[in-house]
């Protein structure tokens, strides 16, 4: 594999890792607060549909993003209602919302546009357009680092950089703010947070709202960045891969970046079987590459590569003592 091909693959790695990263960080907030969220997939799908539809109708991608976030937030609210207020089964709620999203997105898109459950293709200002980072052209003359900067880092859409910025931001929020301390505490031992006079319910709803916003961005990126418009089941299991990455990252932000870049790299490789064959001198079946993130997650869950210990209160509704 020559350097130019490597740069191409790394470039698509970053593109494909972005929705995973946003969804993974979304899951991080929810699970750190003690609410399991299997419904990342559904929220992303809903956001993708809302973004695709509204961006097409208004011609503005940013209004589309807002619509996507709103769509995702509705699902986050229902999940909160089921798992926080009514203390239902969080896993079942997530699964249920994924089904609802999978059906209702097609239903709405079909009734609005009659294009077989798709939204019309987006173009111009209704789509995210690539941003060239400063000095990208002049820097490409520098050997090795220059092309890397120009080809891989520069030339992505706004949400890619937003996603990357979310990593240090999440780290800072989680480990350097009062909110973060409380968030981590409520996921480990909600009773202690309650004793300190902080509302468990409010903290968890706040966490779910952040989850909703980030999933909204992930879905918006799918519909207006990675592709041009919403298509049926377009998230294709990315919500679950993000969940896998979250476990792989052991619920920590920087590791989440590493894990999603790794899984994005697999996805980028799966698109280029020719490159693998020429590099390794034998063919790896594409399905094996597709399955790799899932297999890795099972290996991590099995505790063979260091144990992944979830937040202790995860999945359990909090019942206030009376």
């Amino acid at each position, binding site marked *: 594999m020559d350097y130019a091909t490597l740069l191409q693959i790394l470039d698509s790695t970053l593109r494909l890792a972005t929705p995973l990263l946003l969804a993974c960080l979304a899951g991080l907030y929810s699970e750190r607060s003690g609410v399991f969220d*299997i419904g990342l997939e559904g929220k992303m799908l809903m956001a993708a549909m809302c973004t695709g539809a509204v961006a097409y109708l208004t011609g503005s991608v940013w209004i589309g993003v807002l619509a996507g976030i709103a769509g995702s937030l509705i699902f986050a609210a*229902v999940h909160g*209602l*089921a*798992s926080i207020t*009514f*203390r*239902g*089964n*969080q*896993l*079942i*709620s997530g*699964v*249920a*919302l*994924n*089904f*609802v*999203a*999978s*059906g*209702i997105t*097609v*239903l*709405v898109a*079909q*009734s609005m546009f009659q294009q077989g*459950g798709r939204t019309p293709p987006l173009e111009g200002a209704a789509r995210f357009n690539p941003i060239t980072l400063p000095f990208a052209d002049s820097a490409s003359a520098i050997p090795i680092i220059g092309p890397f900067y120009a080809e891989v880092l520069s030339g992505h859409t706004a949400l890619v950089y937003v996603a990357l910025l979310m990593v240090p931001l999440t780290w800072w929020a989680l480990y350097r703010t009062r909110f973060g301390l409380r968030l981590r505490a409520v996921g480990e031992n909600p009773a202690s947070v309650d004793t300190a006079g902080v509302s468990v319910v409010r903290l968890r709803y706040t966490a779910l709202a952040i989850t909703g916003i980030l999933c909204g961005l992930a879905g918006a990126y799918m519909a207006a960045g990675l592709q041009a418009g919403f298509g049926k089941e377009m998230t294709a*299991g990315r919500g*679950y891969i993000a*969940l*896998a990455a979250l*476990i792989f990252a052991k619920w920590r932000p920087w590791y989440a970046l590493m894990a999603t870049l790794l899984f994005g790299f697999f996805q980028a490789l799966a698109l280029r079987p020719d490159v693998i064959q020429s590099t390794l001198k034998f063919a790896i*079946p594409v*399905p*094996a590459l*597709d*399955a790799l993130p*899932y*297999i890795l*997650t*099972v290996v991590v*869950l*099995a*505790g063979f590569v260091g144990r992944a210990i*979830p937040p202790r209160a995860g999945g359990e509704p909090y019942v206030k003592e009376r």
Partner: protein
Amino acid sequence: MERLPRWADLVLVPLISLLLAGIISALVILSIGQSPTEALKTMVDGALGSAYGWGYTLYYATSFMFTGLAVTVAFHASLFNIGGEGQAQMGGLGVALVCLALPWPHWTLALPAAMIGGALFGAAWVAIPAYLQAKRGSHIVITTIMFNYIASALIIYMLVSVLKPVGQMDPATANFPPGTALPTLNEIPGLNLIFTKGVPANISLFVALIACFLVWVLLWRTRLGYEIRAFGRSEPAAKYAGISPVKVTMIAMLISGALAGLMSINNVMGEAGRLLQNSAEGAGFIGIAVALMGRNHPFGVFLAALLFGFLYQGGAELGLWTSIPIELRTVVQGLVILFTGALDQMVRMILGLFFRPRPVKVA
């Protein structure tokens, strides 16, 4: 909160949940500019209005009974098997390998062998998640989801690279030998008076009914079933009573996987006659809704499977005759799971308003 009378908890909670799901679906249909009553009429006519419609409804119901029972058995051990889809697909692979292995002379020989193949492959596919849950505490929900994706990747690989006959374009196995064709309801003497046209519902329906009965016997009439239920209610208490958590987790999950795998005698052997990509078509996931709706009881699973069979066939009719997309059934399925599985406390609270003793007026 007041406890509801037992009959209300068993009968009214699922019914109210269904009603709520129905109301929201009706609102969805209204909001896309269609008529809910027309939609319901189309569904009832198409799924229940003729023997032909029933033939499809029962065909879907057969698959859902197997997957519903699979989820039920795991639920009783308080394990959530969300991997029925992958196990059913792997069961399909098992059924296909058995059917293609020999030139079977008659279906009476092929069916038991295929059942063993399907059940074994389904159970094998859940064995690793079950073992990891039992021994290493890896969350079974996440691992079974992962195994769904691994299964579909594996099936694609098997179909494209291994099992596809030379010269065939679409990724599927060769057609099974004619000796493996299961009699459909219109070919069974007696029933052919009712089912005059060819229908996909086949002899597997009766296997599914027997499975419902056997699961009931297992759960409520055997020592193992008692151990499974005791473990599901309270792990520490079960441990104290000398029940091995590892054993119960493994056995309950293996039975669950085997039931999901058994589903494939209906769709792969009975209907398609060859293994296709995505053979389970979501039936593994519907099993979750069926088990929740059926209150984790085999008889409830039977009723809920019929209901979802109706929903599936009716939904397909909607897709054919109206401009309401077929995806409506996914929405209803999700709503039923949401109300019966996650918002059940809310439903109980609503019901509690009617069952609470009236406050005595103080003069």
